[in-house]
């Protein structure tokens, strides 16, 4: 029998509507061996404030610094966000602290292009149409490559990623991980975690210690039982047959996946 924690989806919490993750946060990725920093495009016409973006970028750089050699070149895709020379300068300094060099800027705004040229970057100016074509997330698109961060995710920090999130470290109460794919926490999961935020019910949440404030998978929401357990092992949260979020010990979960149902024996 698979041992399951008494972790049942609560009915007093409203189901989730799918979240749109694609344009909301700064995205640092590797495209064909080239580091690319993508700034979010406007969500319903509103741009996230520049200070927030810079803070987000600093946090990302801090926690994934060992994924590049010192003095790597970086390409900035700023989309139709307008960046003045002061903001670009701040960006260059922030990147510089993480030993990254801003080499190329791709933008659809003329002023941003001008500011980038003054700073000595090479510039690709896209027309608005080109940019729009480029940024529309088509349905059925593959997920982004996993986001791997080595950090403590502290209160007030949201990490959103249109793919799988892997955290090497703890997540604290008051933090949120929101992924279109799975969530893996190699540490204690104490904040909120939302896997399959785009609506995929196959997604799972895995943690060495599962002590979440709340778990969400696709459109389901669950909270931990009010009585605290003292013993924790690596656990997996998934959507079970009865359409609720279940939690199983990692070893039991794996065994369960290997055994076809209806064989009539307990593995």
């Amino acid at each position, binding site marked *: 029998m698979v041992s399951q924690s008494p972790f049942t989806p609560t009915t007093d919490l409203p189901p989730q509507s799918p979240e749109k993750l694609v344009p909301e946060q700064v995205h640092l990725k590797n495209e064909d061996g080239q580091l690319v920093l993508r700034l979010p495009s406007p969500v319903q016409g509103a741009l996230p404030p520049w200070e927030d973006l810079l*803070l987000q970028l*600093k*946090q990302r750089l*801090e926690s994934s610094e060992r994924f590049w050699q010192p003095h790597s070149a970086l390409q900035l895709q700023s989309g139709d966000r307008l960046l003045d020379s002061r903001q670009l300068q701040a960006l260059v300094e922030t990147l510089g602290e993480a030993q990254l060099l801003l080499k190329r800027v791709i933008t659809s705004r003329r002023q941003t292009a001008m500011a980038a040229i003054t700073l000595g970057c090479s510039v690709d100016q896209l027309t608005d149409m080109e940019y729009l074509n480029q940024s529309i997330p088509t349905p059925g698109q593959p997920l982004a490559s996993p986001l791997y961060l080595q950090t*403590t995710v*502290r*209160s*007030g*920090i949201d990490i959103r990623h249109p793919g799988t999130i892997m955290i090497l470290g*703890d997540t*604290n*109460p*008051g933090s949120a991980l929101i992924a279109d794919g799975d969530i893996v926490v190699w540490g204690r999961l*104490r904040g909120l975690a939302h896997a399959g935020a785009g609506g995929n019910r196959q997604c799972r949440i895995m943690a060495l210690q599962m002590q979440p404030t709340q778990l969400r998978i696709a459109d389901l929401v669950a909270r931990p039982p009010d009585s605290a357990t003292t013993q924790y092992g690596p656990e997996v949260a998934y959507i079970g047959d009865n359409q609720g979020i279940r939690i199983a010990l990692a070893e039991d979960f794996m065994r369960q996946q290997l055994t076809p149902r209806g064989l009539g024996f307990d593995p």
Partner: protein
Amino acid sequence: MTRIIVMTSGKGGVGKTTCTANLGMALAQRNQKVVVIDADFGLRNLDLLLGLENRIVYTALDVLAGDCSVEKALVRDKRQSTLAMLAAAQSRTKEGITPEQMRELVTGLKGQYDFILIDCPAGIEMGFQNAIAPANEAIVVTTPEVSAVRDADRVVGLLEASDVRHTKLLINRLKPAMVQEEQMMSVRDVLDILAVPLLGVIPDDERVIIASNRGEPLVLDNKLSLAGVAFNNVARRLLGEEVPLLDLTAPQDDLFSRLRRFLRG
């Protein structure tokens, strides 16, 4: 090298100002040249705890306006000549000052002092941004309460993303008896969540209130209280000494509490 340390917490009422006053005094007693700066514009308190309120002539605002030099605005402590305080203006709100101005203010003091302690206001808005702008180290003050620890966690996150590189933790107002009864978070519980190097633990002490009302920091007492000793230890650790944590449990662990624990199983 001047060490510029901001004392911050996020939540209000955890004892930032008390810790700043005592730590500043304790460092000054060890022949360090110390300036404590009140960055709580509009709600200043540090002058009260140090008993220097009636000696303020100029505030930081006067310095920024160019009405006087930084040196002139400093209020020197009569009891301890190596300690000076720069008062905040009571008339202006925190939005009236910019991080650049705070940096400018502190730059004027660099070099001549060993320590500059900045007493940060509660919250994470403009006042916080102003206070951390000139700092290169931070001491996060928290009490062993869930709400204070949560806010401290947020603040540590913000500090990590700022230019402040070294953050240390000071746990204030710990009640060892309650920890033993498992009614209060222990030092380990707090460290477990915050994952920040520990600088010290200050026990809860009613004498802190008396000292605040009198305007005489605890560390000035002739017969030091436990909290006073703890502040002294923190100062020594800041200076690089290795001082073991005080054993706070010893005096409280009398026959009765042992018996009570035994009976509760």
